[in-house]
């Protein structure tokens, strides 16, 4: 009796969930029509960070290998496609795929070294971080990619889907990043329901127990690394084609490693909607903070003292991070799940 009603509840909730997702997608599809230029850029940024966060989530959230060096793959993607474009005239879309492959190879290389040496937990995180820093140093010193001066994406003057550049309107960028974000979520969704996903989570929870049950830890950790690094690199190319300029600090920077994971941590590491939720909250927050500091509105006088000062937005990031870790260690999604489970227990009685 009780079971029947809970089952019924679950089934209807699933339908609600599906309906909500479809509704959300429809809204996202028609949104650009209603947004002015500032809000459109904001939306693009939100989707961008949601995408990167989800890519990171595959590696750290699902496979459980804490990556602190994802900027490496992002930068490889950005530099590969841009260099190929500028020096060999290769189409950015093709360059995007090549960049993804290079990043994947690098990721597999790092992963192989680290996993074979048995590095886990914080040691693995530090290793990924170290490799990411090495790339930062190398890229700052390699003349072939202009060292710290970076590379400019040549403007073609006009819009072109073929050439991945749009100067008169940002709307196509919106749809591209929307597509990427949706694809990354679909990938995570299907992984989650497949043998791959189950094995990922097993390794995350207890690698030795997983091995005792026939799961090859090395193979699956590498798979997670490969998928994650490939997808992250695609984001790098998008960045280059959207902002028209890349340099070592922008795409290999120390803080980028942190920025990528802030969204998922806030939203919930290892959950499907965590990265998106986190990005949805953090991105506008930092933009808003920056705007407020640049030109404090009259009714908030204390901000006048801070006007023009750089750093307040990142202070806020830091504060949010601290608060989230202390009070919402499983992120927003984790918190909601906890509430729901407690609610279920009352219902089941």
């Amino acid at each position, binding site marked *: 009796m009780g079971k029947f009603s809970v089952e019924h509840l679950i089934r209807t909730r699933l339908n609600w969930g599906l309906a909500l997702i479809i509704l959300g997608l429809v809204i996202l599809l028609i949104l650009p029509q209603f947004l002015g230029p500032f809000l459109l850029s904001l939306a693009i940024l939100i989707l961008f960070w949601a995408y990167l966060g989800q890519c990171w989530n595959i590696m750290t959230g699902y496979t459980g290998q804490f990556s602190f060096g994802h900027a490496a793959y992002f930068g490889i993607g950005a530099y590969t496609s841009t260099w190929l474009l500028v020096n060999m005239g290769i189409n950015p879309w093709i360059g995007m795929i090549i960049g993804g492959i290079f990043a994947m190879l690098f990721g597999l290389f790092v992963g192989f070294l*680290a996993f074979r040496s048995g590095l886990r937990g914080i040691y693995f995180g*530090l290793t990924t971080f*170290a490799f990411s820093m090495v790339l930062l*140093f*190398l890229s700052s010193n390699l003349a072939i990619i202009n060292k710290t001066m970076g590379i400019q994406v040549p403007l073609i003057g006009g819009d072109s889907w073929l050439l991945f550049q749009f100067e008169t309107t940002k709307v196509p960028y919106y749809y591209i990043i929307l597509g990427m974000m949706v694809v990354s979520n679909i990938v995570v969704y299907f992984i989650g329901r497949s043998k791959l996903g189950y094995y990922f989570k097993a390794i995350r929870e207890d690698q030795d127990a997983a091995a005792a049950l026939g799961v090859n830890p090395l193979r699956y950790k590498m798979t997670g690394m490969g998928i994650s690094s490939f997808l992250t690199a695609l984001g790098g190319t998008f960045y280059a084609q959207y902002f028209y300029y890349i340099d070592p600090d922008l795409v290999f920077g120390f803080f980028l490693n942190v920025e990528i994971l802030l969204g998922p941590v806030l939203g919930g590491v290892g959950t499907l909607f965590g990265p998106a939720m986190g990005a949805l909250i953090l991105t506008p927050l930092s933009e808003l903070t920056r705007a407020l500091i640049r030109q404090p509105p009259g009714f908030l006088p204390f901000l006048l003292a801070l006007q023009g000062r750089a750093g307040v937005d990142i*202070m806020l990031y830091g504060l949010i991070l601290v608060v989230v870790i202390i009070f919402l*260690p499983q992120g927003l999604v984790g918190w909601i799940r906890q509430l729901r489970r407690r609610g279920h227990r009352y219902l089941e009685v």
Partner: protein
Amino acid sequence: MALNKKIVLPSLIAVAILALALIYHQSLADWWQVNAVVVFQALVSGLFMGGIYSLVAIGFTLILGVLGIINFAQGALMVVGMYVTLWLFTTYGIDPYLSLPISVLVLFLVGALIQRFTIRPIMDAPTHNQLLLTLGITLFIVNLILVLFKADPRIIQSDISGTRMFIGEVMISFPRLVAFAGGITIATALFLFMGKTDLGKAIRASAEEREGSALVGINVKRIHLIAFGLGAACAGAAGTLMTPFSTLTPTAGDTFIMIMFAVVVLGGMGNMLGSLLGGIIIGLVESLGAVFLPGSSRLLGVFVVFILVLLFRPTGLLGKK
């Protein structure tokens, strides 16, 4: 069988190096003629800087050993020490070395506050969460300093800044020498404190066995507070000692953190003596790296060593397996 392999490979490498040295001994001798001074200079400055690295790393290791927390904010705390000294110097004209006790005290208090309100709640959280928390603290502190002091690089010109002496052609910078001496002195004092005093022994006991210590009446919560405060104080002291010869920027701690991780991993996570040795070694690696790998960032050598240690001996020189 296995024993033989361990001897054969290093012997082959040693023989190869010897052979190369014999073959090229003349060019090596010529090179040495030209570059000896540079190398010695690098050794000296590397050693001195290493003392500072050791001090920061020892503070970090103290926190790691006693609380089991990876304090990513150690670099930021060092920067706080720097800016406290700067403020005292520009506002009251206090010489950096005289402000040392003040900055140590301030950092101890700051560390204690951080531990009490942000670290204590997450003592049992997963490691990556702890890392992210201290990262958040870092971001907050560094950017607070950025907001308060702006990003312009600042310099302190104290009486000792710029003074130096020469041994042969090698320059010994006094501020750096004092920093090194100060670092080693504080480290030694800390070792003595841990080894001889009751409080120090209580701290060591808590590091080894948290529950057991509590059972014998040690106030573990207070120990944790003190240990974190001490660790932060080490960072603050290092920052203050660096002010007579460094350029102060809010982000100075970023590279410091990276170097410190290399030091700690090299020395063995959780081993204070290892942090001391590791600091010196990494200081030398950094400065020699600048000599032999010109043009690239001096940190490249450090990171290569870091990666090699992680891959081949993650427990470090003195760490437990």
